[in-house]
């Protein structure tokens, strides 16, 4: 990497870190490119040479968070023990614990995920392959252990689970719910879903 590339990369990182913090502190809608540039210590012009706009910055902030998040999850998930239903609950609980550290940012991401169009190079919410894969693996392992019955539609199970997972964040604004309340609700929802796939 040349000096110029290094500089570009450093600018990119500074802008993304500044944006992430501002979106969390004052909200996605209130944060302006000018404020982001100021916080990052770069010019407004250099923000625009790297990103087309605020929405693109948000999508990169969210894409960049995945690395740290999955490093954390990869340390936990292989050590999950117990019944399939508890493993599913643990995976979801870890996601809530991580995302709730920056809950306002995550809610902005949910919001943007509905307004983004197909031409953005973003991973749409709920289409995260690793998240889906983790849940599918837990179900398939349950199948192998005889806790999940044959013929279960794994993809659909995961879809319904993820839809509930995302909409549960609405309780933050509705009832000021904290991470424990979200996890409790998810635990009940997994209970309902699992009833349909469990061997009896």
């Amino acid at each position, binding site marked *: 990497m040349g000096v110029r590339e290094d500089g570009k990369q450093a600018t990119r990182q500074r802008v993304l870190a500044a944006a992430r913090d501002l979106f969390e502190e004052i*909200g*996605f*809608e209130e944060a302006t490119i000018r404020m982001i540039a100021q916080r990052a210590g770069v010019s407004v012009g250099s923000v625009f040479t790297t990103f087309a706009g605020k929405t693109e910055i948000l999508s990169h902030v969210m894409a960049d968070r995945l690395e740290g998040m999955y490093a954390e999850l990869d340390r936990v998930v292989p050590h999950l023990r117990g019944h399939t239903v508890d493993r599913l609950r643990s995976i979801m609980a870890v996601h809530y614990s991580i995302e709730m550290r920056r809950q306002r940012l995550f*809610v*902005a991401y*949910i*919001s*943007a*995920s*509905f*307004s*983004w*169009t*197909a031409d953005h190079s973003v991973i*749409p*919410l*709920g*289409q995260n392959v690793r998240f889906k894969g983790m849940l599918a693996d837990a179900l398939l392992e349950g199948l192998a252990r005889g806790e999940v019955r044959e013929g279960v*539609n794994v993809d*659909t*199970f995961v*879809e*319904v689970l*993820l*839809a*509930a997972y*995302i*909409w549960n964040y*609405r309780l933050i*604004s*509705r*009832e000021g719910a904290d991470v424990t309340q979200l996890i409790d609700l998810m635990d*009940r*929802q997994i209970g*309902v*879903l699992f*009833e*349909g*796939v*469990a061997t*009896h």
Partner: protein
Amino acid sequence: MKHSPIRAVAAAPQPMTRRALAKQLTRAKLLEAAREMFAERGYEAATVRDIAAAANLSTGAVFASFSDKADLFNEVIVAEYEFMHASMVAATDEAAPARETLLNLLSLAYEAYLTDIRLVQAALSFCWLHDLLSEPRHIAAVDLVRGHIASVLQRGVDSGELSPTLDVKLTSEMLWEAYLSNFRRVIFEGRGREALRTRIASQLDVLISQRKAAA
């Protein structure tokens, strides 16, 4: 789902003074113009000035009926949910099995919005950022629709079609959330009505498959 001012007036409580009626008409005209503008341009690009102009009213008339653009948009969404609920009630055959009824109602609800996908995008995106998910009228309107879904599920439980241990409220919420989330398939993958019907059918089956376990 197109709104006519007539319907909004008809839905208002009776009797009405002439002045209240005029106010109601203004409100209905604005809601209709706003719906069209939001559906065409999305939330940000639709201005209060343009909405007022489209309704042949002054900008001041907008603020006499609604506190701001966000409030106006919220009322557009509330009206959509109320109309969706009324359409669902009208399309519900009390004698039909619960699964079939739910599948038909949700397919109907997809069909009605496939031509208005920008409005759906704006509504689902917007509600997260303006605390609309905690706004009482918004909650009440969503609960109307979700409540109808729950009533169909309950009928299925009562008739023995669905498991007696089914958590009706939680299941109705999850089904509704799956319905909403599937709009991303329209947005990102350009899926049509058949694909959506297949999708929601399979999600519905996962949610009510307890009946098989109980059988």
